[in-house]
């Protein structure tokens, strides 16, 4: 039996008691990865792994326990992290040629925190290049595939992490979000995906895409797995000036609470006429279950929702055009060999970046240019303010959380969306939370034609506790129906 059959809490407990060995858990993760062919010859969910280092870490965790050190909440639990998080032994490529072979000399804060909570990082996962994409097809190392249907995408950009959790290699994985890159693949792969409040988790060591939107997120097989994962990485970090000094709640504390007194908003803009009726049906059925648990469901409106995609596609590329300037071949990554400086830049970057990244850098450069800044970037920031105000108004009116579909459709076939704009629309329900900085998560709410559907719970800033309370309730209420 794979250790991934055990919850994170149970596995950590056994490791702490000494009734199971962390090295076995690591071995089983690698065995499962081989079994499901998670590497380049199959799901292509994993870009790098370091078996020796992982086993060494597992041995050390067990050793520390024997020496009387208090076991962490993830004691000996194997985890995978997205390839845009800096790790010491494995390369950090961001799914890009421009960072091929790059090994970071320092470790991301979230990775250090996971490790000090006892977790064993076993692999780096595939992703859309620099987290730009919604299908994982933009990876320079080939697309990851959906373990539930390998002809379909796992979603993106954190597709590899979602696929690793869905295929039972690990119970917890880290991804990152800029506009739904954890929640959408979680929905497509039938697992739980959390995007915390902006500032809840340190970005130090997360290779930046769009700094004002980026946030590290967590995948879990269950809500509880994700809650344990988030608790381990949350909290202020002095190396990230945008991380917030707000106390971290115990996200598991309301796991079994009823929803009496909880008001759930159903924003009409997230249930448009055009929505796939099967998706609508699963979401409304979920809301019915939540009513049975004591929640009040209220129709609400977030009137600026339709501006979210254009706003996002101005702000995110603008920041990206600047964040990605450092990939110039001067200090790291492959460098085009040519004596002329300008040509070295042009060739290094043209060879290094794929078409979607190039498109967004160009778009971002354009919207920040003299004469266009006011019309695009500045305007987009104003609209972003309006979108945030929409949420604040609804939450101020007594609504505790919002419930929506995570994505308008289930996982789509590989290669089926060649039009970038059509691809951008798959993030239509998720980018709003990034723009407003609020926490949001996706939980499985059932299947359509064997393909998972995700329901999204959004909460106010730093109220991950209530978000988890509702997510636990959904999981409890739907039971096996969530995966059928």
């Amino acid at each position: 039996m794979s250790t991934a059959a055990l919850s994170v809490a149970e596995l950590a407990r056994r490791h702490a008691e000494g009734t199971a060995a962390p090295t076995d858990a690591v071995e089983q993760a690698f065995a499962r990865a081989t079994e499901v062919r998670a590497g380049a010859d199959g799901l292509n969910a994993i870009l790098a792994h370091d078996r020796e280092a992982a086993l060494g870490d597992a041995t050390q965790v067990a050793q520390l326990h024997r020496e009387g050190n208090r076991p962490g909440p993830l004691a000996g639990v194997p985890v995978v992290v997205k390839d845009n998080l800096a790790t010491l032994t494995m390369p950090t490529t961001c799914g890009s040629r421009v960072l091929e072979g790059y090994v970071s000399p320092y470790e991301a804060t979230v990775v250090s925190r996971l490790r000090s909570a006892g977790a064993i990082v076993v692999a780096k996962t595939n992703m859309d290049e620099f987290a730009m994409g919604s299908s994982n097809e933009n990876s320079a190392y080939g697309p990851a595939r959906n373990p539930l249907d390998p002809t379909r995408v796992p979603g993106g950009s954190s597709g590899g992490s979602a696929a690793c959790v869905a295929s039972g290699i690990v119970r917890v994985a880290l991804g990152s979000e800029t506009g739904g890159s954890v929640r959408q693949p979680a929905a497509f792969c039938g697992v739980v995906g959390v995007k915390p409040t902006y500032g809840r988790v340190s970005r130090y060591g997360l290779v930046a895409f769009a700094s004002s939107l980026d946030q590290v997120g967590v995948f879990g097989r269950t809500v509880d797995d994700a809650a344990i994962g988030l608790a381990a990485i949350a909290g202020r970090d002095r190396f990230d000036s945008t991380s917030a000094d707000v106390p971290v709640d115990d996200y598991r504390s309301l796991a079994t609470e009823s929803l009496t007194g909880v008001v759930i908003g159903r924003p009409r803009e997230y249930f448009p006429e055009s929505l796939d009726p099967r998706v609508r049906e699963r979401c409304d059925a979920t809301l019915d279950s939540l009513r049975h648990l004591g929640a009040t469901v209220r129709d609400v409106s977030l009137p600026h929702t339709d501006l979210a995609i254009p706003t996002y596609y101005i702000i995110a590329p603008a920041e990206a055009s600047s964040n990605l300037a450092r990939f110039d071949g001067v200090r790291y990554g492959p460098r085009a060999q040519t004596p002329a400086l300008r040509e070295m830049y042009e060739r290094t970057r043209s060879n290094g970046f794929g078409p979607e990244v190039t498109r967004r850098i160009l778009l971002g450069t354009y919207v920040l240019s003299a004469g266009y800044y006011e019309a695009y970037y500045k305007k987009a920031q104003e609209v972003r303010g309006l979108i945030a105000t929409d949420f604040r108004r609804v939450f101020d009116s007594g609504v505790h959380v919002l419930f929506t579909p995570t994505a308008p459709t289930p996982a789509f076939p590989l290669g089926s969306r060649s039009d970038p704009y059509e691809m951008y629309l798959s993030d239509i329900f998720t980018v709003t939370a990034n723009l407003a900085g609020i926490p949001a998560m996706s939980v499985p709410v059932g299947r359509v034609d064997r393909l998972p559907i995700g329901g999204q719970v959004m909460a106010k800033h730093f109220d991950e506790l209530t978000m988890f309370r509702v997510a636990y309730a959904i999981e409890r209420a739907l039971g096996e129906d969530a995966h059928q």
Partner: protein
Amino acid sequence: MTDTTTQTAVTSRYEMVVGLEVHVQLRTRTKLFCNCSAQFGEPPNRNTCPVCLALPGSLPVLNEAAVELASRAALALGAKVQEESIFARKNYFYPDLPKGYQISQFDKPLATEGSLIIGEQANGSAIRIGITRVHMEEDAGKSIHDRFAAATAIDLNRAGVPLIEIVSEPDIRSSAEAGSYLRLLRQLLEYVDVSDLNMEEGSLRVDANISIRERGATKLGTKTEVKNMNSFSGVERALDAEFARQAAILDAHGRVEQQTLLWDADRGTVRPARTKEGSHDYRYFPDPDLPPLRLTKDWIERIRGRLPELPDARRRRFANEYRLSAYDVDVLTASPRVSEYFESVARAHGDSKAAANWVMGEVLAALKNAGLTIERFVVRPADLAKLLDMVRDGAVSHTAAKRIFALMTQSGDRPEQIAEREGLAQVGDETQLATWVDEVITAQSAEWQRYVGGEKKLLGVFVGAVMKKSGGRADPKKVNQLLAARASG
């Protein structure tokens, strides 16, 4: 026609309109956004870390000490320090700019609306140069083109070192005014102790914006930016050269092109920069990695309260308190350390004029000869004051005092010790003096008779002879008295 007369003719027709941008490196221990040492002169790339190397995933964290120094400088310039300022990204590609952008401040700088008075007009009104803004930014690294054949080396030790940029209004009307502005600005910054202010090490850099117009015109001409000056006199010469170049263009009915020019100090000319800086679009936008810099009124007032006495105030006080000439005041207050040294000597000794003369004369000369700054000077103010006491009290002659001072500068020993060791104490003992006087009278009896007979100008000969006999130690006042007594007796 000589260059000077050409210049004068041109100057009478046109005037220059100049604004200066001065970059000053702040003397923090660490860099602006990371914990690396900001020390100059380390081996290349020693002072680097993931943040200032711009490794993927690294983030900036603001150094509060730099904010304090920048605010001090701004307040000393009478500028308004803003309660909210914003760090912005200035985007451009260059190998010594690791992130591909420089973190600077753009539309919301740290401070605005300051000024510096650089002198008086003929009518007595102050010449005030407005300070548009003082903002904080990080330095870039260094590209070294001449170390390796066919390759450029990059040293990122300087990347991320904190700077302030002090931008003046276009209020400067001559190269001499530019020179005064820069010297007084440097003096002010030295008083508030925010920087090493070393132009050779690049901790103070000046760029000039210059346009010219016909005298009496109010409309501004097209400006050029002149860079690469590595001394204040270089700035003055560069401005004069660019002024002449623009004037020649206008005289030929041409148009001045907006461009960036580099000063060539060896040739005394400006030449266009290789890259067209003016065509850059830096795509400034607020840096999302850094929250707005918020300073409370209380904090700003605390920094203001901690400002030392500034040069203007010190000049006024020295003139009043020590009754010194304008020239003496200027020399003594030129550097804050010298003025503090003078003040310690004057207070301990009491005679401020004597203290001023010694500090301006012997002390500054000794420093210059030894190539030292006053911080490293071995003669303590209290010891110099003691030496002046000894002169005043007649314990040593003025001549001996200079000798003693010279020995003090070598050993740091106390003046009494030196006077005793070297036998330089002034002899006031009547018996000894009388013996010397009598010996001199005997030896030069013919002259003595002429002196007694009324040839008073011979007195000096006798005083000189006695001083010589005493090895310079005789008290000249008493020698005079004794000789007078002998003549009348």
